[in-house]
């Protein structure tokens, strides 16, 4: 009987342990893991707003509301004072939800200090105010970029390279989230403009010449003396029966790496790729987040670098100048610019600075997080010099400012539409960058629009 009692307690401890695991896992799923999956489109609960509660406001970094609930005719209605400018980031809330309206949906429906709020509501008629979101956006800059893109399709990502905070993220063509329900039918059928697509994080574009930053890094990692490698550009270069042409057939003459970056010489970087082979380029692109999932608040596509270790020569040289099958997202290219700007360290991009409870109390705030050192500081310094030269005396001159040193790289991406896209990636001030960005404007036929817009943005940020 004594043995039996001992065995009994073994068994009861065994099953009690099962219950501890059960309770622990239950709380883990319900309280901790919950936010990762409850915004899934299969969760019909997403579309439910709790009546009588003022859904949370979304603010920009300076306290300007970019989405708010307004009480009229006995109920709350969602309003978007900046209209189409924040349609892809703050999102919308209609028959379905997107953007922060989706990703922070439940946060913005929840009452902090619920018991006290409800007691106040019953006793004094206080408004039930759900949690609000303070973002990292600058609403004025966002509006400026949105207006500047006008009727062009394109995307812009502006972030603080030292923290990863997104200052502006614009995608056009856009739509007015105030009218999303009535516009819905047209939005989902407009395959030409795909207005619902957030091009900034989900648009996959050939990076064009902006990719030369990656090729340069690959070459310098392979052999740092290649910075002095020179090449005589005649406007054309031949590889295995195929021709790589510089833009407009321009002959750049004798160029070294700095010069080639500044004038965006295709022949030079194609020859460089031929010299170093595919491996260093694969390695550098993967360090710079190609084929990688970029952790972000909103859905983000994976930048594609499909070239294998034994490519045909033509694929290799095409890839080196950002053409071929390689595709990048504006967010990814902005992070590459930010890596150079921040001494080689990429910071994880984020757009929610903090969550604020109904009484104005901060519930959680984002701590900037590093995604790692993707290049050493010396490499970053070396690329920095090239990107300064590109803006001062190369293709990037339209981005230049008199009172601030801008660094950057232009790009002209050939694509299946036949009319080139215009790229610019860069940062400023070059000596102590506060903003890094990537801009793509679709089907401009190349040209300087992206660089000009970059200048405008840096000017705005510098004057703040």
């Amino acid at each position, binding site marked *: *009987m004594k*043995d*039996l*009692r*001992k*065995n*009994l*307690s*073994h*068994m*009861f401890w*065994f*099953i*009690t342990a*099962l*219950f501890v*695991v*059960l*309770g622990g*896992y*239950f*709380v883990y*799923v*319900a*309280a901790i*893991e*919950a936010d990762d*999956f*409850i915004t*899934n489109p*299969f*969760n*019909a*609960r997403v579309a*439910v707003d709790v009546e009588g509660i003022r859904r949370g406001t979304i603010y920009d970094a300076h306290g300007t509301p970019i989405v708010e609930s307004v009480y009229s005719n006995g109920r709350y209605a969602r309003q978007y004072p900046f209209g189409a400018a924040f349609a892809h980031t703050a999102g919308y809330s209609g028959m379905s939800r997107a953007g922060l309206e989706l990703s922070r949906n*439940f946060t913005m429906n*929840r009452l902090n200090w*619920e*018991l006290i709020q*409800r007691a106040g509501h019953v006793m004094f008629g206080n408004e039930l105010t759900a949690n609000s979101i303070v973002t990292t956006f600058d609403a004025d800059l966002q509006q400026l970029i949105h207006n500047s893109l006008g009727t062009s399709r394109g995307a812009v990502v502006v972030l603080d390279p030292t923290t990863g905070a997104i200052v502006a993220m614009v995608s056009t063509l856009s739509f007015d989230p105030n009218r999303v329900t009535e516009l819905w039918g047209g939005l989902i059928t407009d395959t030409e403009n795909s207005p619902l697509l957030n091009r900034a994080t989900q648009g996959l574009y050939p990076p064009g010449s902006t990719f030369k930053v990656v090729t340069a890094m690959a070459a310098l990692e392979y052999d740092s003396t290649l910075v002095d490698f020179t090449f005589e550009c005649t406007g054309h270069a031949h590889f295995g029966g195929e021709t790589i042409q510089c833009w407009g057939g321009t002959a750049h003459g004798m160029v070294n790496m700095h010069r080639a970056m500044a004038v965006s010489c295709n022949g030079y970087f194609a020859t460089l790729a031929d010299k170093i082979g595919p491996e260093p380029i694969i390695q550098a692109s993967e360090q710079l987040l190609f084929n990688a999932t970029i952790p972000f608040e909103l859905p983000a596509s994976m930048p594609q670098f499909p070239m294998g270790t034994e490519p045909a020569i033509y694929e290799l040289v095409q890839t080196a100048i950002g053409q071929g099958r390689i595709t990048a997202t504006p967010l990814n290219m902005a992070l590459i610019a930010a890596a150079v700007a921040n001494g080689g360290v990429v910071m994880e991009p984020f757009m929610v600075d903090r969550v604020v409870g109904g009484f104005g109390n901060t519930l959680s705030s984002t701590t900037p997080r590093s995604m790692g050192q993707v290049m050493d500081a010396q490499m970053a310094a070396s690329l920095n010099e090239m990107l300064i030269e590109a803006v001062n005396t190369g293709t990037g001159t339209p981005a230049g400012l008199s009172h601030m040193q801008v660094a950057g790289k232009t790009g002209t991406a050939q694509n299946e539409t036949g009319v080139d896209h215009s790229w610019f990636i860069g940062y400023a001030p070059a000596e102590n960058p506060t903003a890094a960005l990537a801009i793509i404007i679709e089907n401009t036929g190349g040209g300087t629009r992206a660089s000009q817009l970059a200048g405008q943005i840096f000017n705005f940020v510098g004057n703040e």
Partner: protein
Amino acid sequence: MIAYFLLQAGLFIFKESKDDATAQPRGFWIVTILLCVFAFPILAFDENLLSVDVQTLIYGGFVLVFVIAGPLLTKKAFRRPCPVITQAMFFLLAMGFIILYRLNPSLATAQLVFAAIGFGVSLLVPLAFRIFSQFEKLEKLFMVVCLSLIGIVFIADILGSLIGIPFVAVDEFGAARWISIFGVSFQPSQIAKPIFVIYLACAFRVKPSMGKLIFTGVASAAIIGILVLQRDLGSALMFFMIFMVIFYTATGNKLLFAGGFAAMAAASVAAYQFFPHLRIRVAAWSNPWPLIANEGFQVTQSLFAIATWGPFGAGLGRGMAGRIPVVERDIIFSAISEEFGWIFGLLFIGVYALLLLRGADMARRAKRPLYALMTLGFTTFLAFQAFVSIGGNIKLIPMTGITLPFVSYGGSSVFISIIMVGVLNWLNGQLKEEEA
């Protein structure tokens, strides 16, 4: 207010668990009664029409009578029943009636009838044991009955398919479980559960010889094997666990205990290869998200129900668990958590743990090994069944279609669970007598 009420409910439950076994857990009882008093008017009230549904109130009235009269009748019928286990049962039953009524009133009505009949029969448990006071001598008979109950489904299944009359109903997990005779369907494996426990307790009441050990093991393996052949893997797991627990307690043989689990692991791997529906179940458990529209639908919807509304839940009647297939039987815990919040859900798990702990206490104080093993068997059966059911709902383990005792819809399940508590109450009286 509801949240405060729930908090109070939680305090009561925890407080009672510390009390001496002899104390009447009046707080627990009050919680159960208040739960019914609040819940049914909420369910009866229509926010849009501003009207009150009288049928709901009548149902609520019956439930209220049941939960008030039940513990009183238990005290009358049994000599010193365990008040904590009794109150825990009525709390769980009340929760079941509330959530079932909210999901499907006609099922809730049927459930109340089954529960009332079950409770009525459970009051006869002391009488039955007085008549069969030497029941441990009927050991072999219990085994034969148990085997027959499990076997009859198997035979009826084969017979039915031969002559073209479907005697046996199959659930969505592919398990052949119900047998229908003249329009009445029941689950023989449920009825076999308490008999199996009593059989094992009888067989192991004295330290068994090797020959007896092998005989009991083979008989149990046969029962579990037939359940596996009927593809009722959830029940097979339950019977296996009960066997292992009673076997270990009686013999203390750690080697065979570990060996048993190793054998089960091997059998699981074999079953995985053999049953396609099991592979689907495992896939829907290990990563349901790619299968969200089909095989993973049930478990992901269950997770949404649990996780969407936060600690205080959506509020009674405001959840969307009604959209989940077979929610009344398989996903009942998630339906409760969705509307009452996860804090309540955790306390709810705690009630089963409380039942288990009270069982542990009873079993330790039992003077006769037979009674200790019976107490152990019944409490672990209820607790482990709760573990498997809730674990499936929260994706801790694959979903099996095992019912949540006292709460899930299911006539046989609720009937047998109440009978088990009846036996536990009788056992509590026995150990008090031994002490006296």
